[in-house]
């Protein structure tokens, strides 16, 4: 079973079209194995990206060095998935 221990989902707030373009460039970097839950579209709307633990440092450095604001939407994806499993089991019992 695929596990997501340490994976985070970042909510990224862009301030202009240039930053959107930078996020689109980031999307192209396949080795980071990013999964854009909400793609970069417009500075008015946030971008959400699932970042595997192994790529976290690289992505955060990229964002910070380009002055792109972000917050951590999900701190540890695996713990949310586990919580969901527990809820499903509870509702069954």
């Amino acid at each position, binding site marked *: *079973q*695929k596990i*997501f221990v340490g994976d985070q*989902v970042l*909510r990224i707030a862009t301030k202009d079209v240039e930053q959107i373009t930078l996020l689109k460039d980031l999307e192209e970097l*396949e080795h980071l194995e990013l*999964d*854009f*839950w*909400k*793609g970069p*579209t417009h500075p008015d*709307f946030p971008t*959400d990206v*699932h970042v595997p633990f192994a790529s976290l440092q690289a992505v955060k450095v990229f964002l910070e060095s380009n002055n792109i604001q972000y917050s951590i*939407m*999900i701190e540890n*994806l695996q713990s*949310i*998935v586990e919580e*969901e499993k527990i*809820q*499903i089991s509870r*509702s*069954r019992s």
Partner: protein
Amino acid sequence: TEQMRNTNSFNYASYHTLDEIYSWMDMLVSEQSNLVSKIHIGSTFENRPIYILKFSTGGTKRPAIWIDTGIHSREWVTQASGIWMAKKIATDYGKDAFITSILNEMDIFIEIVTNPDGFYFTHTKNRMWRKTRSTNSGSSCVGVDPNRNWDAGFGGAGASSNPCSETYRGPRANSESEVKSIVDFVKSHGNFKAFISIHSYSQMLLYPYGYTKTPAADQQELDNLAKKAIDALSTLYGTSYRYGSIINTIYQASGGTIDWTYNQGIKYSYTFELRDTGRYGFILPANQIIPTAQETWLAIKTIMEHTYNNPY
């Protein structure tokens, strides 16, 4: 699996496995066989059956409304909302004047699990799986994005040719049996008047096109109706939606579902992106299922009502 005596004892505020959903469908059909039937429209890559529920009071190939949920398997709130809405239709028929009058003249089809292989995979192997489970020759990566696999601008910008991408379009249009099954059914039926495809999450109601900037011929009417629908949706919990054409509201996306349905002549073609709490993304807590389904239902009813009142 959950023990179910009847569809009233089913827990609509919880997420369920594929087996549980398929059992629930059988239960609904057996309880209201005068109104609901199950149609097997095809099989998946891994040979699971693809079912739709038909709500009909009689007649042959009446004007019809299509609703599908869960073409992206990880968007669990959509399948859960589909179950709630199907139950709502079955319960309201004969009690609610609007649903009764619609069903006396039109049929409603609901496909609750549009991507069964992917959905099974999200429950067993990878909660974050989005695509189908077909294999790709020459690549170790699995699956095709079924919302890039339709014959509408297929292969254009806004879809990937890389099998490892989440938006991989597939080797050719309709390569995915999950898509082809719907295409064949919609074509053979020939009388769909509205087609609503439901996704999550980002709170949007969108209409064609996604593959081209050329406005849909009915853009003004679609836009007005979208506004009316999201106004109705927001009356329940104040949830705010954006609306517009796919390409202008989000980004260019080729090979999408409702671009194909619109090009087939189904004027009222819409796609929803359901609730976003801003905290959970695709892992929306189960306590959000019913509020999400309730508010979405108000928008869907608005689209159905307009379709009913504006025959074409």
